[in-house]
């Protein structure tokens, strides 16, 4: 355990990969840097390699290639008990034969500290479990056990705290509460958190940086808003929220914008927001998020401002869900165009069967390479 202050406490994974004995490659060679003090989320569906990546940082899994560095220290070949890293396990893995106090004190005692009482009590207070110190883990609720698991890891002041789906076993309400709690603790202690989750909302709420993983690769890395507003792959577009994707072809360039042909109409896309090819004639997928779209009844088509992307269609389905109404619209460019409209001023004419104009700002449009599966990521989200 090095105690010397170290400015570069980043977690650096270089070319790290994992292939199991049975030939299954869980993680493709991967480079990843987690900045010191950040809340970093690895997001993906089950089996995408996110947990394996985490376990390689913890030392619970040997990488098949590549190195793991914490700051300037290469820990690739260190066993877990020699790494300045602690893990909050998915099932908490609390020691059932020890009480809460001893569970939390476990790491300190293993490092030979004699007087642990003060530290343990402080830590239990931090996670609001001071009263439960002498209970056994099975006497606590799921949320309390989860907090014990966090306290047990945090008390060691690890360079990095690894969280493996720590909220997976909690019900929705408690999960929301714990998300805020974890975020609060992270801000308070300033330790680097690496959080593995399949819940895109959880990742976006908590993390500064999210890495979306798919099939052992990092699909895209960035801040939650950057990932959501400007996904680079269809997987990210579909896995993170919902996207409407339109097959289109680049027609001309107009300044910083691309003009695209789609189903007889024209769409405008800022070139900077296109991760696909931009040469004339190239096939791209045009994407737009459902809540960015406005709906206008066909009779009022003239009121739609100039310069907005527009698509005509017929409402196939409308479902009222309180804060918004979700429409499914049959359009020539896309069979099931999804549109979420806030319930502020509801237009009574917008019922199934009505002809409508969908329009949105080009700035909310993103472009993807058409040479990928348009449905990637939709299945996974449904499963997760």
């Amino acid at each position, binding site marked *: 355990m090095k105690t010397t202050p170290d400015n570069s406490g980043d977690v650096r994974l270089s070319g790290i990969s994992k292939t199991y004995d049975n030939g299954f490659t869980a993680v493709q060679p991967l480079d990843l840097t987690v900045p010191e003090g950040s809340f970093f989320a690895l997001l993906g569906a089950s089996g995408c390699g996110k947990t394996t990546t985490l376990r390689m940082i*913890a*030392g*619970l899994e040997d990488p098949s290639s590549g190195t793991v560095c914490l700051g300037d220290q290469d820990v690739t070949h260190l*066993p*877990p*008990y*020699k790494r300045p*890293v*602690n*893990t909050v*396990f998915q*099932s908490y*893995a*609390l*020691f*059932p*034969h020890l009480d809460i106090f001893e569970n939390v004190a*476990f*790491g300190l005692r*293993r*490092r030979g500290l004699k007087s642990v009482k003060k530290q343990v009590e402080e830590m239990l207070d931090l996670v609001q479990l001071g009263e439960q110190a002498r209970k*056994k883990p*099975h006497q606590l609720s799921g949320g309390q056990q989860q907090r014990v698991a966090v306290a*047990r*890891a945090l008390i*060691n002041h690890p360079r990095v705290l690894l969280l493996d789906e720590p909220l997976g076993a909690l019900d929705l309400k408690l999960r929301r509460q714990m998300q805020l709690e974890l975020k609060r603790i992270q801000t308070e202690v300033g330790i680097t958190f690496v959080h593995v989750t399949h819940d895109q909302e959880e990742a976006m709420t908590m993390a500064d940086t999210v890495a979306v993983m798919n099939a052992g690769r990092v699909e895209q890395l960035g801040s939650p808003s950057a990932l959501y507003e400007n996904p680079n792959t269809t997987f990210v577009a579909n896995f993170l929220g919902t996207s409407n994707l339109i097959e289109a072809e680049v027609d001309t360039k107009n300044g910083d914008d691309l003009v695209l042909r789609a189903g007889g109409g024209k769409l405008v896309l800022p070139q900077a927001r296109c991760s696909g090819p931009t040469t004339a004639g190239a096939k791209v997928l045009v994407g737009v998020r459902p809540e960015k779209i406005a709906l206008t009844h066909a009779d009022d088509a003239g009121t739609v401002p100039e310069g907005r992307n527009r698509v005509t269609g017929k409402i196939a389905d409308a479902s009222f869900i309180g804060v918004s109404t979700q429409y499914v619209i049959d359009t020539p460019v896309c069979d099931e165009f999804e549109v979420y409209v806030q319930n502020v001023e509801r237009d009574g004419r917008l019922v199934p069967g009505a002809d409508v104009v969908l329009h949105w700002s080009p700035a909310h449009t993103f472009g993807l390479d058409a040479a990928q599966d348009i449905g990637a990521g939709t299945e996974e989200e449904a499963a997760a």
Partner: protein
Amino acid sequence: MSTLTEAPPPLAPAEPEGKPPRKRGRFTPYWLLLPGMLWLVVFFALPMIYQASTSVQTGSLEDGYNVTWHFATYWDALAEYWPQFLRSVFYAAAATVLCLLLGYPLAYLIAFRAGRWRNLIMILVIAPFFTSFLIRTLAWKTILADNGPVVHALNSLHILDLTDFLGWTAGDRVLATPLAVVCGLTYNFLPFMILPLYTSLERIDGRLHEAAGDLYAKPWTTFRKVTFPLSMPGVVSGTLLTFIPAAGDYVNSELLGSTDTRMIGNVIQTQFLRILDYPTAAALSFILMAAILAMVTIYIRRSGTEDLV
């Protein structure tokens, strides 16, 4: 209610107004208990009562025995045979410790490291049960024979000198010594140690080992602080399943030992079947039972396994 304020308080506290509706199947648990209880009464309770009455009888084989409440039989039996009692406890304890030392690593291996070999090793552990207890014990006579390879090897390694010195063996022989009896006991009761150990080790969540490692516990520390405490239920039931039958065993001493290694089981057997002194035999049986019961109670209290989940 106000009109009732003057009414005297009821004499019987809260008498129910009517009988609760009779539930169907109220007697089902008792019906299910019946066969087992019958079995227990016929083959356990009645013989126990019979033996208890035998132990306080006096008389002779020719004149017949009568219940005279002659409790002195107990003291006489204890006074005469206490060395065999002590020896039984000592041999059984030695065999139990050996079983634990041999069985724990194997149970650990099967539970955590055997992978696809797990079932095969389990079968190998149980396989000896396919042959008779007697045959297997007799086989040890051959294994430990004076001119056999085991004795030769121990001799040339000078281990026998050491065991001779400790009094476990005598004069270049293993057979007919305490060592042979303890070896036989260990061998015969080893599976009874391994199986409960395996069961309790196998129940331990492997992630607890990972968690311990993650919290700076070296592998050996993980074993001491996590694995072993969690396997205590298996250790307790394994040692009981080994110690109790081993303490009452007479076959191993009979076949592998000598007159100097007689255990209490041998004494009881001789009293019953050769000397035909039924009261002494019965008294000895009860003393053995009481002694084991007392030791087991203290042991379970001490090990504190009730606390384990």
